[in-house]
């Protein structure tokens, strides 16, 4: 079905936004309670239930009624009724006009054959004292909403009327087919005429001060703003463009009153279910303003192609809380289960709403599984027993993760006291260094070589804060099935990664990267894993890239380390030279070890990087070793 289309949908909010009426073309009208998000009433078969009209009973059920337009009218407070004044006025393709009393669920009145050829538009002023209907016969009919009596009829066009609108004070009426004509309500005289729309106008409204009329035609990708002043200008004073034709318009205009709210606010809903919101202090500013777009993001690619995908069904400008922003009350989701939400939109800032999959029938397969997993994550409940406060130390410096708070002793953060003690120890008796290293060895089971960096770290020479990433300790749960320290063969690594899910592998990749960056693990051990993950799960990693920029940081790290190869090689060469000289001089056996080292470095350049980065220490260490040897 492709992109969603809400063109054929009839929607109406009640004036107080308490209820929402929707009719999707099957002759049923559903009233939703927007507070509870539940269906309140359903109107089926209204025409057939109408006992006064004998021949209508011959029709077969609701499917024979074809509604063409719907408006929600509040008769207001003059009768001091809270709900009783709520009417839904409907026009049918057969030319009848119906009014439903929402509270009692009954037909209030009906005018049969008001507009032969079909009712096309309904409008009324804010006070709700008169209802106007326009029809395919080019006539406009004025109706008393309380009694349902037709008061006046007059012809405005030889063609079919496609849209009408009454200004909020009820004095001016606009009727449109392709040409927009403005009439005075009291004497039905034509005041003004605007032409420019090539096709039939689909939606048209007056701003609430009645100074401007906004209209958009079927198939047109812009809204025309016309100035209603009785002058002879026939062209639009400004146009607002969109990506798709609009089906619904709303506007608010503050001319006087508070200075900071002053301006013109326009809301439009396109037939693809995207909301546009413009703001301009005056008409010139409005013309150049950039709209805020509100759309529904659909995560699941399967759903996009699915019939009846969730979209924005209806929207309404509810209030202006501050300058250049608006409260939009909207209904979005699926036809079977719309959701209601009030959102705050700022001019020029696009918004994405999350869609919910409530009430949708998912196509079976992977998406269902994924959705289920998502559900599980959502429903996860943590339970703590009475030992809940054991870890709560007064000022805990790094208190970020739940997993850590449960197991505070998993922090591998080095206790400053310990470090100081170590340093003192190492100074007082250099020999004990070996035993220290032994202890480190014990801590890192299976590490065959003693990394100089680790040694330095344990002595506190390397600061704790040089890693840009969160230096959280490796989560043991993550590595429980992967023994990083074990020098696995490439094949085994590949198997292990293949067995992992994409997201798990991605998380592992993140952890590995932070390990590598923070040098808490040997690069030689980490890099094979990283490369394997990148090879096998490249798709998923790429899809996550925009959000996390993991690859970017990976690349940056690799580059930084790679840049150090050249000086390192030089250093190696020099060392070799020195070693050769020493060798020559002393005929010692050290050459072997150096050759080994060299071989290592050429094998795995990343291995070098570790040494290079701290080459100052490295060098000094080496040289001091050398001098010692000498």
């Amino acid at each position, binding site marked *: 079905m492709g992109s969603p289309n809400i063109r054929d949908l009839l929607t109406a909010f009640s004036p107080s936004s*308490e209820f929402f009426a929707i009719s999707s073309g099957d002759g049923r009208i559903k009233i939703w309670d927007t507070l*509870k998000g539940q269906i309140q009433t359903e109107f089926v078969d209204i025409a057939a239930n109408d006992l006064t009209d004998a021949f209508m009973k011959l029709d077969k059920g609701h499917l024979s009624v074809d509604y063409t337009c719907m408006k929600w009218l509040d008769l207001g407070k003059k009768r*001091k009724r809270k709900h009783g004044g709520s009417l839904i006025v409907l026009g049918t393709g057969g030319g009848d006009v119906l009014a439903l009393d*929402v509270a*009692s*669920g009954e037909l209030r009145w009906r005018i049969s054959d008001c507009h032969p050829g079909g009712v096309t538009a309904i409008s009324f002023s804010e006070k709700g004292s008169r209802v106007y209907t326009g029809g395919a016969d080019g006539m406009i009919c004025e109706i008393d909403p309380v009694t349902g009596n037709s008061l006046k009829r007059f012809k405005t066009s030889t063609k079919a009327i496609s849209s009408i609108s009454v200004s909020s004070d009820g004095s001016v009426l606009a009727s449109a087919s392709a040409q927009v004509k403005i009439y005075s309500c009291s004497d039905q005289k034509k005041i003004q005429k605007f032409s420019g729309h090539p096709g039939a106008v689909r939606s048209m409204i007056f701003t609430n001060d009645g100074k401007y009329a906004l209209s958009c035609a079927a198939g047109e990708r812009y809204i025309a703003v016309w100035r209603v002043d009785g002058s002879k200008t026939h062209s639009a004073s400004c146009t607002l463009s969109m990506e798709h034709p609009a089906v619904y318009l709303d506007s608010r205009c503050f001319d006087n009153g508070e200075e900071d709210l002053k301006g013109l606010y326009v809301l439009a809903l396109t037939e693809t279910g995207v909301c546009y919101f413009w703001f301009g202090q005056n008409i010139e500013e409005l013309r150049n303003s950039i709209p805020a777009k509100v759309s529904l993001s659909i995560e699941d690619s399967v759903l996009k192609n699915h019939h009846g995908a969730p979209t924005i069904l209806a929207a309404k400008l509810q209030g202006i809380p501050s300058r250049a922003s608006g409260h939009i009350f909207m209904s979005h989701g699926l036809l079977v289960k719309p959701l209601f939400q009030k959102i705050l939109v700022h001019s020029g800032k696009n918004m994405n709403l999350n869609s919910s999959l409530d009430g949708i029938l998912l196509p079976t397969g992977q998406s269902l599984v994924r959705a289920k997993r998502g559900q599980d994550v959502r429903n996860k*409940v943590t339970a703590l027993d009475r030992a809940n406060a054991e870890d709560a130390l007064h000022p805990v410096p790094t208190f970020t993760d739940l997993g850590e708070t449960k197991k505070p002793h998993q922090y591998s953060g080095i206790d400053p006291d310990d470090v100081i003690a170590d340093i003192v120890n190492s100074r007082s008796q250099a020999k004990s260094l070996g035993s220290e290293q032994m202890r480190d060895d014990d801590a890192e089971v299976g590490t065959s070589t003693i990394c100089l960096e680790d040694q330095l770290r344990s002595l506190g020479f390397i600061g704790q804060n040089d890693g840009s990433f969160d230096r959280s300790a490796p989560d043991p749960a993550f590595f429980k099935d992967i023994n990083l320290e074990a020098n696995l063969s490439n094949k085994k690594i590949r198997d292990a990664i293949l067995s992992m899910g994409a997201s798990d592998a991605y998380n592992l990749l993140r952890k590995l990267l932070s390990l590598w960056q923070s040098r808490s693990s040997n690069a030689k051990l980490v890099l094979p894993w990283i490369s394997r993950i990148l090879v096998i799960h490249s798709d998923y990693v790429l899809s996550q890239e925009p959000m996390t920029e993991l690859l970017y940081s990976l690349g940056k790290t690799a580059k930084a380390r790679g840049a150090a190869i050249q000086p390192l090689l030089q250093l190696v060469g020099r060392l070799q030279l020195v070693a050769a000289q020493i060798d020559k001089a002393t005929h010692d056996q050290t050459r072997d070890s150096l050759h080994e080292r060299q071989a290592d470095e050429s094998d795995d350049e990343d291995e070098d990087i570790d040494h290079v980065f701290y080459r100052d220490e490295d060098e000094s260490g080496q040289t001091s070793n050398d001098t010692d040897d000498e």
Partner: protein
Amino acid sequence: MIRGGKSYVSSPPAFSNDAKRLLVCTGNTVSVFSTSTGLQMGSLEGHVALVTSVIVVPAPSPAGRILCYCWTASLDGTIRYWDFSTPELMKTVDVRLPIFSMVIPSLLSQQNESSEKASDVFAYISVENIRAQETQPKALRGQVRKCNLTKSSLAGGVTLKETKKPEYITISSSGEFFGILDKQKLHIWKVPEIESERVVLKRIDLHHTKKFTVFAFHPTQRIVAAGDVTGRILIWRGFGKRTFSMGDGQANGRSINFDEDKPGVRGNDDADNCSTWHWHPHEVNCLVFSSDGAYIYSGGREGVLVVWQIDTGKKKFLPRIGSPLLYFVDSPDPSLASISCADNQIHLLKMPAMEMLKSISGIKLPFSPPEAVSSLCSGCIFDQKAGVVALHTENYGIQFYSLFDDHAISEVQVCERNHQPGNEITVVVTQLALSVDGSFMSTVEVRLPEEDIGGLVCLKFWTSDSQDKHFRLLTVIYEPHRDSDISAVAFRPTQLMAVTSSFGGDFKTWVCGNEIQKGEVQNTGWTCYAVGSYKKRPMTAATFSADGSVLAVAAETVITLWDPDRNILVAIIGDAFTPIKTLSFLGQSGYIVSASRGSRPQLSVWSLSKLSKLWSYSLQIEAVTCLGDPSTFAVLALLPKLATESQGMALGGRDGAILAFDVNKPDPMAVWSVRKAEGGALAFLQGSPSRENFTQGKTSRGLLAFVNGDHEYVLFDPYSDEATEHGVAHRKGLVSEETEKYGYSSVYGELQEFNHERNQTAEIIIAPSEKPWATLFSGSSQTLPPLTKLCSAFLESLLEKRTAVVE
């Protein structure tokens, strides 16, 4: 001014003749609901007190079904006649006695005598005799009287029966008999054929050993059924044959003793036989014969509707209604009936399948928690931005109710267990807190120990999405403070942090851990962040300041201020007499208001910058809220019992007052007196109803919401004059009452201020009083301050008085 939150189940509703509308007594008004949609269509407004009866005038013929007339009776002592299709008052009859129940027999029997239009319409009303109030407590205050509605007068001198309290009158559907219950007796009167003002009504009595709760007449036969407190239903057949068929007077019929076999009938009661059915485990609340007389519908506290076949006694059930049944009302349409439940819901039933078609549900009514935990329970909580109140419900849940729309939004089941209406409550949700944006909720539930075993306190954190307002559980913490109970829960306005304080002498702050997964932030759960205590004293209240920088925890009588991030005790303020119950910061200004209850209730305002008390009152405070302006606040105070009694009538049953204060002045800016203040709540709602947005230009600063003990509420703008209807009139009276009662403090200000180290002589309140000397030395000597202190204060008070006079 928006009112709402009315009880729909204070009296039985009534169906209109076409059964398309349901008339429900809602407080001072009668609301008309549509039975097909369950929405309110209109209301009859005019009564000034609770409406107790509504009677729809039955249609004499099928054509007259569209007639929409009804009689209503109210506690304000009037009977009114309405056309409810276009809500219009047609007639008012003033009886001047509070009417608790009314029946109009002639309406029901009018079918056959509709030709005689001249006859007056008489109503039988159950009234409370207010004149009997002043005499001894055993006075019979309830009276059944007769009223001529056509002539708008009480039938002179006719009092059918006097009872201890006003009873509910039941009438048979033919209008032939009516009766009342009086403890273990049933009084039935026969309506005379020709009604006149002074006709003597015949009466029979039926006796039982248990207290009756409800009874009903058979529509055609002489059968009466009555339910009692133990759940039994007694059915008398052929009642009143002797008395009512005899042409002679009552006394004559009484003396004759027929020597026939009357199975089950007690003593000399006038009935053929009596049978008993027993199914209900608890008292029977509603009992109705079906319109054809073949069935009896009964319901009680256990929330099951039982249908009895009269001839065989066979039963059918509609279980799982979930709340005690109060009333069952049959409609003129045989396929529709309604049941009213104690949880403020009216269910429309499709008969005879007994299928629920629609429910009309209102705000959940308050319930009384068990004694053991009632002191722990907090009142309702407001979401001040959205205008939503969250209330505890009896079935271990939370109801969210929109104050602007007078409409329930959703319910959250805090505890996963079924609620059986009849059972004893074992779990109580005691505390409730909402974060400022309304996305997090925290609840505390207490499982009551059975024989001192199995008590459990449980803290839960909930979260909701912005789209659907349904809360889901995030974290459960069992026994967050070991065994001790939690006294308060509060959220920090700026961050995801909450605090719980316990009577066990410590408070804990909780934080929510976030985890980024698939690019979106997910809350993983709440964990304890820090623990604090102060001298091991019980912590009785806790709150965060509006900017979240200060945490205030009341350690019984002192307020301790903490830095919530580093968990460092910053300062300690002052001393109250009794443990502080409520703490609240006043917006961004550096003031904190504390309220304590108990033997020496107190409302105090403290300055955080000076760490000292500004002023205080001896008032029993129910709720405190900060008004939109940072330096003003409003409190809901209970008037002292003594004062309400002495002023009784003048206050018109109002037992509380809302006082608006400016921090800098102890004189209240405004006073509104209210009813049923006990258990009430107060909040300042920042938003405004959505429909107000249409009338742009008029920006309201917010509304003050007051929810009373019965969960009725009113929203008003505290800054406009509209709401000050009562306030001004009672203002003087209130303040002077205060001073008369607390003689010392009226002269010397708060005694405690003298004990305070800091110099605040300028801030001592001197409330003006007419005769301070009368009560000056009437206290016991040990409570008087030392003479040295007394003297200076006394002189000072004189000086203050002098200046006041000059002003």
